[in-house]
């Protein structure tokens, strides 16, 4: 009885897994395949003129199969083929020691460090500003327009200024990059927290009033916990924006380290494959960072009802 039952159960479990894959995995797989196919087609179309001009014999004695093969393996393709990117990506991680500037993971660590510092500083600044704004009508009117205006200045214009000023003050390395990441990070946190801290219902604030709770108690016991569901989506946006800020900050630093620097050297030397693998790596880093924040969110809000 027992073995049979468990056999049926595993069978059902397998069926369930396939059904799950059919519902969730299949559309993703089909989409991925379509993207890859389009990419390969783009590789052929975009690289063909260069291949005909520079690689293939000038007398025209080549077949279309030769053209196809050449566009897949060009040294400096306009659009590298996916497998070229994948190979460079892989060798970028395993061919050199981790502390070598030729290793992609080294650049990931550099960018991640300034992103995380900027994220922490931006979150703290955002929390501080939102608490000030919620507790003082004057600060609400004085600060909010400036905070909104700050985001209409492009980060590309701000980054060099910050780098120059902080550099002249003796700050180099992580600090200026973290400041620029913070500049992009604090905004979503501030806006979401102002909304979140104001989200408690009147009845809830009146209840604390009847307990003669102080402002700080109301903030700590009611406003902050009530604002958490507003905070986490902002943190997910913020950490992704922080990554952009950190990479932008790496562009004008003389390009020493970081994914942004890697992108820049790639474009200096026309090494498109390197640009693409740095691009893929930054996308993965962004994904990893937002996933980590989402994980913390699930952990912290696990007891809240979905209803």
């Amino acid at each position, binding site marked *: 009885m027992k073995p049979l039952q468990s056999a049926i159960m595993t069978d059902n479990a397998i069926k369930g897994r396939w059904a799950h894959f059919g519902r969730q995995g299949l559309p993703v797989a089909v989409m991925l395949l379509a993207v890859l196919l389009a990419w390969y087609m783009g590789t052929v179309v975009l690289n063909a003129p260069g291949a005909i001009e520079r690689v293939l014999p000038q007398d025209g004695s080549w077949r279309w199969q030769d053209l196809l093969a050449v566009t897949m393996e060009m040294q400096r393709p306009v659009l590298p083929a996916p497998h070229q990117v994948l190979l460079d990506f892989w060798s970028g991680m395993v061919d050199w020691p981790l502390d070598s500037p030729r290793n992609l993971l080294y650049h990931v660590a550099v960018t991640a460090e300034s992103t995380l510092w900027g994220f922490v500083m931006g979150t703290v600044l955002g929390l501080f500003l939102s608490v000030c704004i919620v507790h003082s009508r004057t600060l609400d009117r004085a600060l909010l327009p400036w905070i909104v205006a700050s985001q209409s200045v492009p980060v590309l214009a701000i980054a060099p200024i910050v780098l120059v000023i902080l550099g002249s003050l003796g700050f180099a390395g992580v600090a200026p990059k973290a400041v620029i990441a913070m500049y992009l990070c604090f905004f979503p946190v501030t806006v979401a927290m102002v909304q979140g801290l104001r989200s408690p219902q009147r009845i809830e604030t009146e*209840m604390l009033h009847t*307990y003669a709770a102080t402002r700080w108690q109301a903030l700590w016991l009611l406003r902050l916990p009530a604002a958490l569901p507003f905070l986490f989506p902002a943190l997910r946006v913020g950490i992704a924006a922080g990554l952009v800020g950190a990479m932008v900050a790496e562009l004008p630093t003389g390009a020493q380290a970081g994914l942004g620097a890697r992108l820049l050297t790639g474009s200096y030397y026309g090494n498109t494959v390197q640009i693409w693998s740095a691009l893929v790596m930054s996308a993965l880093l962004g994904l990893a960072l937002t996933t980590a924040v989402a994980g913390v969110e699930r952990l912290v809000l696990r*007891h809240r009802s979905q209803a």
Partner: protein
Amino acid sequence: MHALSDIDLDIREGEFVALIGPSGCGKTTLMRVIADLEKISAGNVLVNGVTPHEARLARAYGYVFQSPALFPWRTVLGNVTLPLQIQGYARLESKTIALDHLARVGLTGFESKYPWQLSGGMQQRVSIARALSFEPRILMMDEPFGALDEITRDRLNEQLQQLWQRERRTVVFVTHSIAEAVYLATRIVVMSPRPGRIIKVIESPLPDARHLGLRDTTVFIEVAHAVREALAVGHHD
């Protein structure tokens, strides 16, 4: 236009007073004035011999709102300990007190549940335990069972009656249900709107110890009739 006018009411210690009247008659406003949630333009209110503001700061009363207003991120126990935490009780002490109060409203065993896992009636019982956790001398209830179905409401009325029997705390209870007011209160204050004023104060002839069966007795029906008459008078004015 004033929300309230010519209110002269003296609530004695240990009384169960029901404020009843149609919506807009200011019964909730009157209670909110007593609780220092609303300011008055003229007149004098004393709670335990001091102003409502001082009484609030001295934590003289527990207030039960129309909806339970439990914090969804706190467990049942965490919700009941909330006022104790605000008043600076030690963690262990407040836990012991809260468990005791949960037992008094019949919710032993639910302390680690979250509010959304409880029915509406149970949530309101948690909010009563929360209001009583710091042993205030006065309990104010603003249509606490208004949103519940009648069966749950009857049961909670019975439990509230027993609770009052045991502890004899002063209770001010706002309702628009005649049956509820007559069943619970030792004194029924009938109010009327535009402007909000007191029409009649009825001393209940019912015995202090009550059970739901009383509702079919002649005395009960007579009191209910008197309340209905008074409400009708206020309506025709």
